């Protein structure tokens, strides 16, 4: 009956057709369409967040000089005569962090990749709650719009850093209130999304798909969703308390006797600025693993497929991921060593921080050993995956001195910190996102991306991204603070390292140019890329072996698959082909 109805509607008049378009592509409840919506929106935010940073990099490289060419685009309150005001610089910094974390990277790795791939990998016809899934996207979309509206508020967008530390954020301009409202939307969205992913994985696994047969990507999504589910609410609580402080004049985060602009504030007082930091980092440290776990999941799929051999230590990777999920709730205060919590608390969080490095190292080591002895196919996806390993390695290892209280005293709040977490997230997670896009593009569109453009994109990105972030370690070790509006020009101890600012800025702008081959490739290949088969990469997991490219519009599979074997049965001795799909009896 369904088919006949569909046929009839396609012959119907124009107005009917438009309505169908809305339900099919705008308010769709199909997880694949929602995944693409998430992906496209988040890629736009990624680009926007990067643009904010490119503006800041002008100010850091040439402090106080007018920005050329585009200066006319900005108002008098942000960049009079093209010269950036300090308040605007602060807004750019706060919004760069917020947009990149909450509107770009998490929606990409969980919203886009998770939504599109998890149901396919577990052999489900859709998410468990398709309507909640649609709601999750649209709440995210509204949250994004609210965040952007901040730029038009009096005093500009939020300007107290992406961490919004009070008391500064409590007395900041209206943009901060808008930021808090935006966060409430984004938290709601991630709550709906993470619930959905967990229920889908637990309840809708295909017949025979036992826990240890799940692809590692799906495991990573499962643990990530638990982190989102349980770590975000405390930030929501913190957001509610800060909204109360800002709107009703309460003093949750306002200490007694606070002096602003030479006057004692007329408030009840008795609040604790540290309380915000605890609540914020209780979210924001698990959030780091929300950023990295799905990336590790993507890399595991790409590496297993392109080395044509099983992942080395699949089980230990799974157990490490679960362990990491639990312990990530116990390390948050290592962001707060310098707040005077006391040595006993510092020692506790230093210990847990050292412990949490163990599962990360297990996963990374397993991925590296997986390369051993493989006949590796160096396509664009695999190049990004190979680069991910050392880049994430640098990001992780440079975190150790920050996790030790003694060395953190010197490094805290310097460019070293910026270098550290950008190595984890930029050439780490974002490279994994690129690997994932090149790898699954044929599944989503039915056409492969151009390999030549992909390789140009990879090599240029690899060079320039290191050009941005590596010098930050040098500056940071010299003690250059991360929050200087002039990049350190007015600080004596930074003088010897100022020459690096221009180098980093030029690298950032060149990195933007290096994305042009990707953008061209992304759009051109959609319509005229090389046609891809259903299983373009000869892969074993269900999204490749059990359905077409792109998968069927409604229901994903012609026949719901049954699973007989593990996720990475590549090059099984005695088989005539070098991959044995999970649904092959």
């Amino acid at each position: 009956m369904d088919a006949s109805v569909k046929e009839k509607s396609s012959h119907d008049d124009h107005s009917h057709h438009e309505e169908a378009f809305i339900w099919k592509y705008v308010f769709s409840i199909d997880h694949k369409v929602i995944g693409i919506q998430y992906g496209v929106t988040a890629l736009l935010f990624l680009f926007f967040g990067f643009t904010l940073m490119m503006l800041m990099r002008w100010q850091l490289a040439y402090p106080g000089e007018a920005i050329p060419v585009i200066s006319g685009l900005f108002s008098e309150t942000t960049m009079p005569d093209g010269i950036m005001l300090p308040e605007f610089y602060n807004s750019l910094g706060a919004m760069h962090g917020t947009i990149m974390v909450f509107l770009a990277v998490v929606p990409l790795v969980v919203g886009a990749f998770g939504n599109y791939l998890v149901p396919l990998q577990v052999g489900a016809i859709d998410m468990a709650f398709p309507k909640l899934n649609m709601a999750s996207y649209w709440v995210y979309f509204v949250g994004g719009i609210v965040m952007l509206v901040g730029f038009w508020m009096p005093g500009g967008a939020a300007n107290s850093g992406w961490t919004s530390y009070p008391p500064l954020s409590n007395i900041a301009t209206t943009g901060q209130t808008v930021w808090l409202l935006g966060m409430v939307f984004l938290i709601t969205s991630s709550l709906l999304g993470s619930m959905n992913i967990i229920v889908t994985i637990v309840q809708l696994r295909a017949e025979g798909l036992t826990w240890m047969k799940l692809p590692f990507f799906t495991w990573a999504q499962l643990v990530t969703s638990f982190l989102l589910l349980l770590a975000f609410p405390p930030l929501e609580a913190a957001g509610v308390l800060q909204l109360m402080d800002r709107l009703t004049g309460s003093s949750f985060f306002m200490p007694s006797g606070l002096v602003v602009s030479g006057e004692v504030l007329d408030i009840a007082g008795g609040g604790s600025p540290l309380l915000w930091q605890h609540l914020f980092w209780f979210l924001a440290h698990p959030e780091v693993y929300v950023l990295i776990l799905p990336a590790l999941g993507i890399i595991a799929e790409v590496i297993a497929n392109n080395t044509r051999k099983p992942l080395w230590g699949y089980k230990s990777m799974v157990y490490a991921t679960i362990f990491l999920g639990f312990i990530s709730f116990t390390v948050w205060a290592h962001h707060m060593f310098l707040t005077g919590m006391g040595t006993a608390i510092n020692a506790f969080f230093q210990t847990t921080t050292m412990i949490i490095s163990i599962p990360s190292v297990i996963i990374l080591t397993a991925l590296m050993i997986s390369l051993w002895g493989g006949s590796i196919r160096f396509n664009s996806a695999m190049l990004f995956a190979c680069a991910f390993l050392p880049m994430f390695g640098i990001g992780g290892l440079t975190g150790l001195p920050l996790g030790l209280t003694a060395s953190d005293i010197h490094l805290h709040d310097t460019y070293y910190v910026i270098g550290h977490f950008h190595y984890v997230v930029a050439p780490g997670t974002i490279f994994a996102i690129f690997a994932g896009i090149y790898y699954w593009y044929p599944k989503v569109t039915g056409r492969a991306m151009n390999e030549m453009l992909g390789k140009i994109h990879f090599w240029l990105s690899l060079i320039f991204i290191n050009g941005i972030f590596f010098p930050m370690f040098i500056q940071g070790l010299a003690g250059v603070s991360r929050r200087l509006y002039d990049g350190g020009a007015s600080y004596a101890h930074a003088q010897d390292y100022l020459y690096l600012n221009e180098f980093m800025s030029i690298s950032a702008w060149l990195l933007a140019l290096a994305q042009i081959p990707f953008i061209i490739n992304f759009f051109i290949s959609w319509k005229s890329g090389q046609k891809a088969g259903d299983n373009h990469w000869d892969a074993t997991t269900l999204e490749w072996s059990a359905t077409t490219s792109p998968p069927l519009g409604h229901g994903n599979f012609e026949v719901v698959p049954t699973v007989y074997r593990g996720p990475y049965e590549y090059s099984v001795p005695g088989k005539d082909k070098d991959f044995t799909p999970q649904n092959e009896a």
Partner: protein
Amino acid sequence: MNIPFTTNPRPDTGVYNAKLGIWLFLASEVMLFGALFSSYILIRVGAPEVGENAWPLGSDILSVPVAFTNTMVLITSSITMVMAWASLAMKKFDKYKMFMGITIALGLTFLVIKGFEYNSKFEHHLFPSTSNFMAIYFTITGLHVLHVIGGLIVNFYLWIPGAKMWESDPERFTNRIEVAGLYWHFVDLVWIFLFPVLYLL
């Protein structure tokens, strides 16, 4: 093709989809209220022992009899909620209508009493800006009130417009009442923590 296990439990996990979903949602809610109660503890521990900013005794400012009445109202509504679900399980739709109606009425009663309580605080010029005790009182009870309102909207939907499902898919409708009930009990449970913490301690 239909999504499996929307009504019947999956054999190896023992739950249907929405039941797992609501438990996950409640886990997240525990973290939300847990964070607020933790904030309460942290701010109270940091308050001075004596003087203007010393932490007050809840019962000196708030009305314990009113809150006790509200506690009884909510607990009763939790009982009638279970009765509503049990009626459906016994295929007695009329009884379901009655018990769900009582549940909604009790929820509204709670809101009205709470409204009078807020109003008397405002009349005595007690606002969130007055002290941190008043601030945390208004924040936690306010968020709880929002949860009660949300629960009432869901319950009302299941009482009148959504009850048509009883004709088409009685088992799934019964499940919906169970899920809404789990949420309602949670809202009740939050109040049971909230009452001693804010009013008695």
